[in-house]
């Protein structure tokens, strides 16, 4: 009996000798990618899914001895995610009610409405792109810890799309003479200052190698777009006197900050895992950084305030520095 008890496990055998009790987050996230063997899927080696994973995931130049050693600094689980986001949404609901009583939308002046129509409502296409790109990082992620971060990030993007749709509809009802809900697609497709964003999304959508996708999206497109169209936008809206959208954007910044935290942790993780990884990431960054600088400049023009460009670039640089990476053309860290 005593012997039997001694063989009982306290936690997943997959943890090996962890030297401590795993957290609930770890218990619920650890080692769930079963496709990391020589033939990823239990199918003929040349099946489409196997070829895709071999070419775009297993063929990448990043070297990581144990992908399951990565941890999300926020340790988000399904339970903590829905609880946290329910609180956020309750807060935003409160904002919508409060400002509705104050006739917020009806009282917006022409200049403010112009800014909302130019820099806020067309973003739902961009964010849909970010949703697709987050999902791609999830499905090819070489470990379930990273995949889970990307899964919740995918959901965060849908949250933002739906809030944008909500605000777009409110504005179209309060101002039927304007083209809210109608003109966004044209703005997204043709306004010159949206084109660097659209170009980055479209090109990132065909960057299928996972390491390249990670750099293009998670290290360039998303951090720069978030720096401009969330952080920068929230301040700009506040300055011009569009408090409701400023406060909603502030709340979306919290999602972006959570994404930046795991991205920074991942960068540190990758560069610690193997000294060669930094050069791999830097190589991809060198080909992609121009998209980021173009987005920062165009974003500042969309918001009509030039200082946002410099702020966005320095936020971005700071993120890259976590992996010892530098934007081409800037002094190396």
């Amino acid at each position, binding site marked *: 009996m005593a012997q039997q008890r001694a063989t009982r496990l*306290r936690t997943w055998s997959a943890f090996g000798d962890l030297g401590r009790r795993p957290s609930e987050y770890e218990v619920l996230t650890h080692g769930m990618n079963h496709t990391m063997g020589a033939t990823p899927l239990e199918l*003929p080696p040349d099946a489409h899914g196997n070829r895709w994973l071999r070419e775009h995931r297993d063929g990448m130049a990043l070297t990581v001895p144990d992908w399951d050693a990565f941890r999300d600094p926020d340790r988000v*689980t399904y339970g903590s995610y829905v609880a946290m986001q329910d609180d956020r*949404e309750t807060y935003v609901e409160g904002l919508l009610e409060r400002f509705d009583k104050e006739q917020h939308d009806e009282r917006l002046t022409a200049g403010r409405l112009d800014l909302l129509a130019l820099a806020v409502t067309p973003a739902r296409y961009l964010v849909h792109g970010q949703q*697709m790109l987050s999902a791609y990082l999830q499905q090819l992620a070489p470990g379930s810890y990273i995949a889970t971060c990307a899964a919740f990030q995918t959901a965060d993007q849908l949250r933002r799309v739906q809030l944008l*749709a909500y605000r777009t509809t409110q504005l179209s009802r309060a101002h039927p003479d304007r083209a809210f809900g109608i003109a966004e697609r044209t703005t997204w497709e043709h306004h010159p200052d949206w084109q660097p964003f*659209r170009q980055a999304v479209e090109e990132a959508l065909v960057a299928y190698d996972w390491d390249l996708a990670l750099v293009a999206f998670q290290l360039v497109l998303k951090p720069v777009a978030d720096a401009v169209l969330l952080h920068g936008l929230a301040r700009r809206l506040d300055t011009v006197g569009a408090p409701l959208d400023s406060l909603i954007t502030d709340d979306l910044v919290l999602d972006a900050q959570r994404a930046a935290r795991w991205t920074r942790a991942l960068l540190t993780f990758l560069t610690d895992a193997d000294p060669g990884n930094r050069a791999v990431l830097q190589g991809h960054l060198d080909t992609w950084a121009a998209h980021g600088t173009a987005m920062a400049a165009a974003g500042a023009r969309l918001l009509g305030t030039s200082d946002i460009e410099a702020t966005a670039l320095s936020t971005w640089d700071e993120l890259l520095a976590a992996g010892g990476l530098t934007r081409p053309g800037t002094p190396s860290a």
Partner: protein
Amino acid sequence: MLLTQDDWYETSRDLDWTFSYVDRAAAFPTEWTGAEGIPEDAWEAWEEPFRVSYRDYVRVQREKESGVKAVSNALQRAGSYDQLPASHVAASQMHMGLITMVEYMAVTMQSRFCRFAPSPKWRNLGVFGLLDETRHTQLSLRFSHALLKHDTRFDWAQKAYHTNQWAVVAAKNLFDDIMLNADCVEACLASNLTLEHGFSNIQFVALASDAMAAGDVNWSNLLSSIQTDEARHAQQGFPTLEVVMAHDPGRAQRIVDVAFWRASRIFQTLTGPAMDYYTPLDKRKMSYKEFMLEWIVDQHERVLEDYGLKRPWYWDDFLYSLDNGQHAMQLGLWFYRPTLFWNTSAGVSRDERAWLNDKYPQWEENWGVLWDEVIRNINAGHIDRTLPETLPALCSVTQLPLGTAMSRDRLAPVSLVRDGRVHHFDSEISKWCFEQEPERYAGHRTVVDRFIGGEIQPMDLPGALAWMGLTPDVMGDDTDGYRWAREYATESKATESKA
């Protein structure tokens, strides 16, 4: 003014734009979208079968989460686990080992929809599926982890799919294919429509009800809570089927017919024995066949009819299999018990046998005689003769042993030769599946192919067990320690002394 969901919903799904920097076809390759041969504007007809906002989703799911957690904490404190019947516990270990990773695979499948589905409405809906399946993965892991202190076998909730255990390999082959290899259209028709809408009821309704009857409130509660999500996201299959039926009905028919047979064999292997042999007799509500007929077959026929699909050509053989396949598999599972990571309940005591004969009038004739031999060996002290020495030949499509799909009088070999290699099948239906897309199956090597190819060393049963990751602490044995066979011994002695 404040809005209702209907007010803003349309805008939230108006998300397609005209690409100009890259070729749109390169960003949405048909190998992943599955939209080959379907005009792009056809997807405008794809309508969400349910509408949910992110706001409502997180609110409702948060409540569900705290509900399940409260029940589970209370039950763990009550320590009710130790009183559960051993055969029922075995069923829960089998389920957790074989299904938990499938929930995680479904996360990735839904994520594929979020990225590659040919309609932005579907790409959005996929997000809720992705969250749901993350929930199911984590619920199953939490449940199993809490039971590790009672039984190491629950380690297999996390571990199973990292091993080559043969039942896992069979399940992995199916789910890797229809969840991780298939394009969005096929994954949706095979997984959402056929598997989730069709079969998941048997796992999450039938087993939930059996679990409740057996006193396992915790597991029952978990299964039922998962089912509330499944019932929702499984509906993604309907609009997809509608679009494909309008443009390529032959493809829809083939995908659904192949998936229905492959899924039915997997459930027959796992849930069939659990319902007909593992659930304690006085707790059984329905036989596997009864449940299949009432919940799966009826429903599947209704879907086929509603969408203009034909019944699969193999329908009569499928119904015939419902009388037999799970009994063949049960005998196989029990005999090959050291190759399992759960204990097996024989489930053929006299009372149970009466129940089986009542539910399956051919049971005695087909299977009773084989169990009699097992019983004679047990009672003569020859347990060794009830254990395997080799591996059985496997089907190139289902990965299951030959002879386990139909009855004992239908054992004529089914095979074909392709590129100089002989492929064996458990039925004409599996052979037909193979012939639909030989390249999908032909290059895969079954566990036995690998054994014969020398990949498994030493080339004997212990070698195979080690290769399958089976350690003595989890290796299956009879749940009742063979005590169930004793009643046959006393009776046969009584008969002998009279003679």
